[in-house]
């Protein structure tokens, strides 16, 4: 192949140059798309939330609102529905600053306790325990878990469970006690409720069916 080239298809320099161009072009395209995506997934502000401006990742104060997950006819998939009615956690509305601090602690705790090596978050992680993307909306927290932990609200039940999961087994496969403090548990609830408000393009699909079945006394209501 050295010397006189029979064809461009057997020319090393042709393929080298093509490889460089294609790689460069793909990289530039990725960087350009990254700028667009980063702008779309930055966390929203409290002001945007109050004005009803939809963000893919709403402000931390979204935890003061009622969050639902409903089928959107136009998009053909399920999407989070935020508010308008309020539903503050632990009966107290959080200021923008307080909510941000709680979310920070919750995210930090989720990492330092290594949740992701058993659970999936936004579908990524281990496959040993349920996906946490919409865990805040899971029907198990409506009646079953509050009854088991002897708490009145689902957020209180979540805190009790997260602090002592070994005391409240639901299946043979149990969550271990990770030494989560009350403060950390409350922050985790904020983290989970916030995550349930993220627009995940309809993942997990069918989760709203789970919620509805519970409300209508189906499989999950037992």
């Amino acid at each position: 192949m050295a010397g006189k080239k029979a064809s461009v298809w057997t020319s090393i320099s042709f393929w080298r140059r093509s490889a460089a161009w294609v790689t460069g072009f793909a990289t530039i395209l990725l960087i350009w798309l990254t700028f667009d995506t980063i702008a779309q997934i930055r966390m929203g502000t409290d002001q945007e939330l109050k004005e009803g401006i939809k963000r893919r990742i709403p402000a931390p104060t979204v935890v003061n609102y009622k969050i639902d997950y409903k089928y959107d006819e136009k998009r053909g998939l399920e999407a989070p529905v935020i508010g308008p009615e309020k539903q503050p956690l632990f009966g107290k509305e959080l200021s923008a600053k307080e909510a941000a601090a709680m979310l920070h602690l919750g995210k930090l705790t989720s990492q330092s306790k290594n949740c992701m090596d058993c659970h999936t978050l936004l579908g990524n992680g281990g496959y040993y325990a349920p996906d946490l993307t919409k865990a805040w909306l899971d029907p198990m927290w409506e009646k079953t878990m509050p009854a088991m932990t002897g708490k009145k609200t689902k957020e209180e039940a979540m805190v009790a469970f997260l602090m002592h999961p070994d005391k409240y087994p639901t299946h043979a496969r149990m969550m271990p006690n990770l030494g989560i403090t009350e403060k950390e548990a409350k922050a985790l609830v904020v983290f989970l409720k916030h995550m349930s408000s993220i627009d995940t393009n309809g993942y997990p699909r069918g989760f709203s069916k789970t919620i509805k079945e519970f409300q209508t006394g189906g499989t999950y209501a037992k």
Partner: protein
Amino acid sequence: MLNKTAHLSPSKQLAMNYFRVAIVLFGAQLLFGLVIGLQYLFPGFLYEIVDFSVARMIHINALVVWMLYAMIGSVYLMLPDETGIEKPVGMGLGKLAFWVLTAAVAVVVVVFLFIQVGPGKESSIWFINEGREYLEAPRWADIGIVVVVLIFYANVFFTYMKGQKTGIMTVMVANLLAVAGLYLAGMFFTDNISMDQYWWWWVIHLWVEATWEVFVGTLAAYALLRVIGAKREIVEMWLWIEVLMLFGSGILGLGHHYFWIGTPEYWWEIGALFSSLEPVPLVAMFVHVLYDWGKEQGEHEAEGKGSSIKNGPTMAWVTTNAFGNFLGAGIWGFFHTLPQVNIYTHGSQFTAAHGHLAFFGAYATILIGMMYLGIQDSYGLKRLKATFKSKMAIFLITFGVLGMAVALTIAGYEQVLVERAELGAGWQAFFTAQNLPWYIQAQVWREIMGVVTFVGFVYLVWDLLTIGKVEAAAEAEEA
């Protein structure tokens, strides 16, 4: 795999050190894999002692680290051959970096195993574990890894600049810079889980579905030159074509991880299109290996010279790589890469099936092949023939991993239909699917196949420790 290395280039001696640690970590990966496989069947096993999260963290981190070790080892192995420089630049520093890295890895493993988790504070992320799948290594270790990799890279780069600049080394030097640079994308904390995962995938995906694949292309090219005496012009031309196709599909194929993490919908189309193209270069790589092998063998036979293969085990593993990469990364990846399918399969045992077969087929295979090449050099052998143990190793490991992947695929199929499609996900839906007899049966088979893999691993270690001596004696007898 031991001693007899005194006559070797310091670069190759260093390579053997990296291979030794790699194989130990490979063993750790398999052992902890068996633990978590068993926990699926007996949830009480090591509960609150070595929980699933802890064992899995070690399972996947041992995987990543042994592969990085074997990759660094492979580069040090080929460095003198490709650059023509017997004593590459900075070998003293390179040796120091090896020991520093190994000490750091040992500390991280001890912390993972005995401290496990920390309180929700920044210090936990700095000193215990970062809690991001695959990148669990605490921040101090991240920084240490970057320093060590920079030393390694400087050695490779300056040796390259001094020596002959082959196509293989040019791709290697450029690609390694990308591998190292991408790691930085995973070294920051954010409260925004979507932003977190956006950059996390830059490391994970752009490693295993782009830069690591190109790395494998360069290793295969080097192995073909060494093992069957393939023509450099052909091998290097193919390498550039592979780079073109791997980066052309793999870089934007990143989009298939951006379907459901809060990122915009346009990633559906971009991710689907480019990740669907990802298997194409893998087919090309497979064709290339078999084409060159057939060509060289044909020429050998025409001249009445018998087998063209100078290293049996390496050739066997490289061929397994060529097919395994296509099957595990290509086919098993394509199974669930379209968003229309992935909305149901995302985060299920399907992913685990693909993960097992892809990491094995694309990476473990060729890196083991490089280890055998290192042994051939260590003992200065003209030809390294496969022993019974080499054959048992490759057969059992390949059969075991394939079996695990099939079992996990069946588990995933069942999980997706019942948990996702039928019951609509959620806590109860998850456990309903996990407790169905067919699912459990699949997990039993996964564990059995895991044991088969482990037996194969024992044969592999046994072979690596003895094959050099055996073959050296045989060669001496012939002479």
